[in-house]
């Protein structure tokens, strides 16, 4: 039955689901880092394609489950090489040794998970910028998220590994296609003492997805496909367009719960300068652009935080953040750049904590323009790159090489697909086979948007340029204008060959592949691959584990 509906639903899914990753994708981060680990599985990159046209999938059994569909799509994409697959970024934190904390893969810092082993039970976190307002539904960036999540819970949540856990919902189930139900936790109170009602959760969902309710939330696409919520028999039922296989995953990452009465009785500036959530910390003091101070909420429904005072501040300059940490003025700093890592490691009182992030860095190639329309040429560029050298020398080991758009640990990651190995002879032969020998190409890269983006682009271009039959140069671009071309909706406006980063905190392959690598993807540079389109369409009509 689901297969029969796939054509009807496909466009809807591609449209809505594609939006989710877009929310966090290009938003990017300018200077996160890594932990010095030596890359991922170090597999040999064998992909079986070897310059063929990528029809190898015919020999494989038909995928059945949703995850198998996604894995097959990743295999196909590795073979067809629509990108030069580069690396997975790491989030690198500097932390005072007196703290015990495990970094999360979704870049969020939940202070409840911090414990103090020595000294004052107060913790200061310094990130790169402060919030853009405290309305939990009226922002899109990680720094604001980090400030909001201390005071607000979601319907579901994630642990440090990204697994879905209960939060304000104690149980959840799929009732039918397009309808799921959440059972709401009893005895939860907001910081003003009022008890959480199921209607508050329904209101929160509707405030995000429905512009008629309160605000036009920039997070509407984070709840991709969700059309609304209502209270039914003491629980909350959420409706979606179609089956929405990742609906629980979306609620684990997005949609903080607010109190309807509290929100409706305040104007925008009041909502943006205070918080009334159900989270482990409540706001004591807030000074816009300067700092926010919290204390534990005594009636919190979950485990009480171990720290007694939490302060979040911002310093944009990374070297100053590190100096603050070394001087003992702060306890945890974000985005320690690779060149600063040794300063933190060398000090007894501080250490580095790093975790693979949800962001992949790649060079997209437009499928509809020469020479990138040739799969052989695209594969050749992948073979030309020495990923390990880039990771070791430019990112100082703080990244993992990848050979597919989906990162390890995500639903749909294909463990059989490794990074392309560097093979210059193979690359030159493939260029000859493609009929584009002697071509000159330009790699466009944003400046300062992603960790060492320009240096990575220069290394890639230099390695391609070393091929005897291809010339490559780098063009540095302002991110806004580059992103404007990529997001214009018209592939004709897109650059032919460009570096980009893509974050995906849903931990699901579809949220990377659909927007970036399918025919209907809003930001797709690779269209017309019916096999990928079909696999993704079918995957979106199969129930997932989430």
């Amino acid at each position, binding site marked *: 039955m689901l297969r029969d509906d796939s054509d009807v639903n496909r466009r809807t899914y591609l449209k809505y689901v594609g939006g989710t990753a877009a929310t966090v994708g290009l938003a990017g981060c300018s200077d996160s880092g890594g932990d010095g680990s030596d890359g991922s599985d170090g597999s040999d990159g064998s992909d079986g394609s070897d310059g063929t046209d990528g029809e190898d999938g015919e020999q494989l059994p038909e995928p059945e489950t949703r995850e198998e569909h996604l894995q097959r799509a990743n295999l196909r994409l590795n073979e067809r090489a629509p990108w030069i697959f580069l690396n997975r970024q790491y989030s690198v934190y500097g932390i005072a040794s007196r703290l015990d904390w495990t970094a999360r893969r979704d870049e969020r810092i939940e202070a409840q998970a911090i414990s103090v082993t020595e000294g004052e039970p107060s913790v200061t976190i310094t990130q790169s910028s402060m919030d853009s*307002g405290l309305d939990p539904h009226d922002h899109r960036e990680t720094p604001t998220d980090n400030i909001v999540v201390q005071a607000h819970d979601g319907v579901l949540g994630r642990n440090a590994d990204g697994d879905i856990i209960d939060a304000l919902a104690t149980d959840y189930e799929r009732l039918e296609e397009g309808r799921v139900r959440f059972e709401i936790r009893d005895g939860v109170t907001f910081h003003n003492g009022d008890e959480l009602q199921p209607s508050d959760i329904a209101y929160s969902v509707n405030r995000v997805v429905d512009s008629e309710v309160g605000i036009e939330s920039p997070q509407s696409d984070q709840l991709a496909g969700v059309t609304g919520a209502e209270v039914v028999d003491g629980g909350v039922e959420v409706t979606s367009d179609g089956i929405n296989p990742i609906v629980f995953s979306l609620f684990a990452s997005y949609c903080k719960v607010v109190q309807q009465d509290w929100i409706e009785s305040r104007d925008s500036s009041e909502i943006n300068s205070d918080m009334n959530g159900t989270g482990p910390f409540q706001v004591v003091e807030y000074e816009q652009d300067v700092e926010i101070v919290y204390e534990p909420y005594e009636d919190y429904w979950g485990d009480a935080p171990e720290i007694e005072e939490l302060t979040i501040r*911002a310093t944009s*300059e990374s070297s100053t953040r590190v100096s603050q940490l*070394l001087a003992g003025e702060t306890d945890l700093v974000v985005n320690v750049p690779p060149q600063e890592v040794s300063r933190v490691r060398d000090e007894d009182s501080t250490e580095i904590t790093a975790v693979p992030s949800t962001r992949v860095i790649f060079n997209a190639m437009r499928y509809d323009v020469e020479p990138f329309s040739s799969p052989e040429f695209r594969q050749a560029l992948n073979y030309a790159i020495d990923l390990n050298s880039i990771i070791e020398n430019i990112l100082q080991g703080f990244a993992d090489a990848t050979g597919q758009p989906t990162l390890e640990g995500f639903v749909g990651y294909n463990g059989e697909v490794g990074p392309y190995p560097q093979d210059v002879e193979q690359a030159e032969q493939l260029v000859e086979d493609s009929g584009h020998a002697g071509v000159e190409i330009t790699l466009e890269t944003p400046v300062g948007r992603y960790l060492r983006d320009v240096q990575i682009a220069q290394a890639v271009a230099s390695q391609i340029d070393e091929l005897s039959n291809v010339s490559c140069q780098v063009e540095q671009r*302002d991110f*806004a204008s580059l992103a404007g071309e990529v997001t214009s909706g018209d592939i004709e406006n897109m650059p032919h060959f460009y570096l980009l980063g893509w974050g995906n905190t849903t931990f699901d392959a579809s949220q990377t592949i659909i927007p970036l690598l399918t025919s209907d993807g809003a930001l797709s540079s690779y269209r017309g691959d019916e096999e990928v389109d079909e696999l993704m369409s079918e995957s979106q009509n199969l129930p997932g584990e989430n």
Partner: protein
Amino acid sequence: MALGRFLLKRGIQGVLVVWGVVTAVFLLRFITPGDPVTFVAPLDASAELRAQIAADLGLDQPLYVQYVDYIVGLLQGDMGYSYLRGTEASTIVLARVPATVELAVAATVVAIVIAIPLGVISATRRREPADYGATLFSLVGISTPNFWLGIMLILVLSVQLDIFPTSRRPIGLFETFAFLVTVENGLAAPMDVGAFLDGLWTWLWHIALPAVTLGTYFTALVTRLTRSGMIEELGQPYVRAARAKGLPESLIQYKHALQNTLIPIVTVLGLQLGTLIGGAVITEAVFSWPGLGTLVIDSINVRDWPLIQGSLIVIGTGFVLINIFVDALYAYLNPRVVH
């Protein structure tokens, strides 16, 4: 009376300059790549949603309509709403002004306190060790990039020696004075001198390194100016006459020569103060000082045009006001310029 006409003329010129700044800043948006809708809209937003957002931001109107709306708004103190934060741009921009002014003034004070005595000593002890030392200091000060100096000061004086804090502005100067003017139930309450002194100390402690960093180049510049001005003045006939009259050397140097030397220095001080207000970006970033410079940079990164425009207009207006003030001071010190 002549001074009044002079200032009126300068005032009218200043208004025209500010209007020019406003217009230039407004037009800048249309010649700079990067659509603000890109940052506000979801990245895969439909054309309809983009159009809706553009309409909400008023970006769908013809240029002249947007311009007139903007000018009318400005005259009413309305700089529009921040695209990203959704709050009034004027509130955000004006909140950053005290930090920037404090830093600029503190850097200027550092420059004056160090540079003028140093320049005088250097000029009056030419070719002596003090002169060589001052000249070397000037050369190093002018040659040192302030981002490097700032980071070095943090590393040495904050991280290694733990004398100064690395960064931040936990309290503003105006806030510290608020402890002296407390009001309870509509009545003046007793001054909290202890809190005032604590606040003032905290402020001084935190502004010291940024002020030195920002003021070093300025100090070196003014030292050289003072030295060359003093040397020139000390060679003037009136100085010889004063000496012949038997006036004490200190009186000749500080009362007569220095006063004449100060005229060009005041001009440079004024111009530099204006520059410091808009040009402290790097120092603000290194020391996490929440001023206009960092606001401009942060806003440019996300194409938050109301904040960019508002900040630049405030900086431009500040520059014009300082110049008018300097002109007035100049006219006071040397009445001939009025004519």
